[in-house]
């Protein structure tokens, strides 16, 4: 649906060059919720704005449905933009227009009849749950309500793509959850492909299918959310994941454990169906080794279970080694070394 092929965007600030987006290649498939995460200044907004050409690529090509967007005439581009809804961190509503007026704006651009606009606006207001606010002005709404208007406005022309620039970053946790639920509904019920950017891992965790991690303009890691969460390669990715699921006790507790002569710690990662079996107790019993769960969690990710435990073993050294060898064929297990955490 959206293809970035070796896309770079360089800004020139006087003599200095800023490589906001650096040789990025990504594919967003139809029907996906694709999340891009990165720290401030990583180039996420710039990447997003390349999709509807609010920013033109310096090199490389952005394809939407296999059409190079940069090759469109300004008229074709405007038509294409009507098919890409966009929502913003600061909502960017027209303050001079009512809620209904804001939602009607993109419809007027399409030349829809007055009655057609009216019906569509009512339908959208119902979809985002704001039917009673039609005649209010944006300054009379809460942040969450404003974003609902933003979403209704972005969906007005029934676009096939929705791009979201930090759609929930200005909202409190409860409102964020509501808006995320709404975005999920947009994706599921309307089949709209969503490309969103965020600096909050829980946004990725709760609604995205795919994720790309950006740093210094580059995509350093990408893939299925489940795979990236359960097997992060890059340190930055690991840090983002730790922001939503602490998978290691604090350094203090670890040191204390070691000072008190604690045993070697191993991290065991269970994915998917394996969490249903009594793997640990079966294998340890077989080798006559005891295990002790020091820390850990089992959680749901993308409707699959994901367990992450820190354990230590007690028993004969050889037996422990055999246990480890056997466990390695079933789950991910590795020793926790000092510098981690």
């Amino acid at each position, binding site marked *: 649906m959206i293809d970035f092929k070796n896309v770079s965007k360089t800004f020139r600030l006087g003599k200095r060059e800023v490589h906001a987006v650096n040789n990025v290649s990504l594919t967003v498939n139809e029907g996906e919720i694709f999340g891009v995460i990165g720290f401030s200044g990583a180039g996420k907004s710039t990447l997003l704005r390349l999709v509807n050409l609010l920013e033109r690529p310096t090199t490389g090509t952005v394809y939407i449905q296999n059409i190079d967007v940069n090759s469109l005439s300004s008229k074709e581009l*405007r038509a294409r933009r009507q098919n890409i809804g966009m929502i913003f961190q*600061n909502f*960017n*509503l027209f303050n001079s227009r009512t809620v209904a007026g804001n939602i009607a704006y993109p419809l007027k*651009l399409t030349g829809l009849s007055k009655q057609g606009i009216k019906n569509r606006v009512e339908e959208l207001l119902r979809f985002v749950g704001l039917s009673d606010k039609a005649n209010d002005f*944006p300054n009379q709404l809460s942040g969450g309500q404003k974003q609902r208007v933003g979403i209704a406005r972005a969906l007005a022309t029934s676009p096939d793509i929705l791009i979201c620039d930090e759609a929930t970053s200005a909202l409190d946790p409860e409102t964020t959850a509501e808006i995320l639920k709404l975005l999920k509904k947009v994706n599921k019920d309307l089949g709209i492909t969503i490309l969103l950017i965020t600096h909050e891992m829980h946004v990725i965790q709760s609604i995205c299918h795919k994720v790309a991690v950006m740093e210094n303009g580059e995509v350093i890691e990408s893939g299925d959310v489940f795979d990236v969460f359960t097997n992060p390669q890059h340190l930055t990715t690991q840090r983002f994941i730790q922001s939503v699921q602490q998978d290691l006790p604090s350094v203090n507790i670890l040191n204390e454990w070691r000072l008190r002569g604690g045993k070697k710690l191993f991290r065991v990662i269970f994915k998917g169906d394996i969490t249903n079996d009594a793997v640990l107790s079966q294998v340890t019993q077989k080798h006559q080794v005891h295990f002790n769960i020091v820390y850990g969690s089992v959680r749901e990710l993308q409707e699959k279970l994901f367990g992450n435990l820190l354990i230590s073993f007690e028993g004969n050294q050889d037996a422990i080694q055999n246990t480890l060898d056997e466990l390695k064929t079933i789950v991910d297990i590795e020793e926790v070394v000092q510098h981690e955490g």
Partner: protein
Amino acid sequence: MKVDWTTFWPRIVESTGETVVMVIATLVFGSILGIAIGLLLFVTREKNILENKLVFQVLNILINIIRPIPFIIFLVAISQLTRLVIGTTIGTAAAIFPMTIVASFSIARVVENNLVSIDPGVIEAAQAMGASPLRIIFTVLIPEALGPLILGLTFITVSLIDFSAVAGTVGGGGLGHVAMTYGYQRFDGSVMLVTVIILIILVQLAQWLGNTLSRKFMRR
């Protein structure tokens, strides 16, 4: 020689009318020109929807040249041009011409300043929806800036009342002319007082109207 107030009132009413006509006509023509120039100035700015360095610089410099000239000097300086365009340098019409020029450039700045204060994100949202630059000008820029714009125009109107009095002293009609010929040259304090009071009332009226109107459109 003092004026005879029983016969002088009609004169006052007539000049008040002239002043009001001068101010309103200038406001109408000046707004049309000034809003056009101000919009052009804004959209041709760097990184804006119709970025154009040449147009921006030419307009910017023109405004910066005209605006600092004291009105009374400007009035006299362009009197040849006024004669060419209007046919005379005396009377209400001859005052409206230079007032319109000066007002246009002042209004252009007011318009530009108010447009600059619109959140660029809102303009970007319209762009992202596929709105053309012209459409953005008329359906986003003007409505979004309307409230403060009216306040700005009110401020200009008040200074136009001032300008009209200045124009009156050098051949234009209106209250300025009356104050000058009767109040100043014939030392008639009562005429001076009456014209001053009427000018104050006009200013108050303009300010009240502007405040009321702008409040209707303020949505921030």
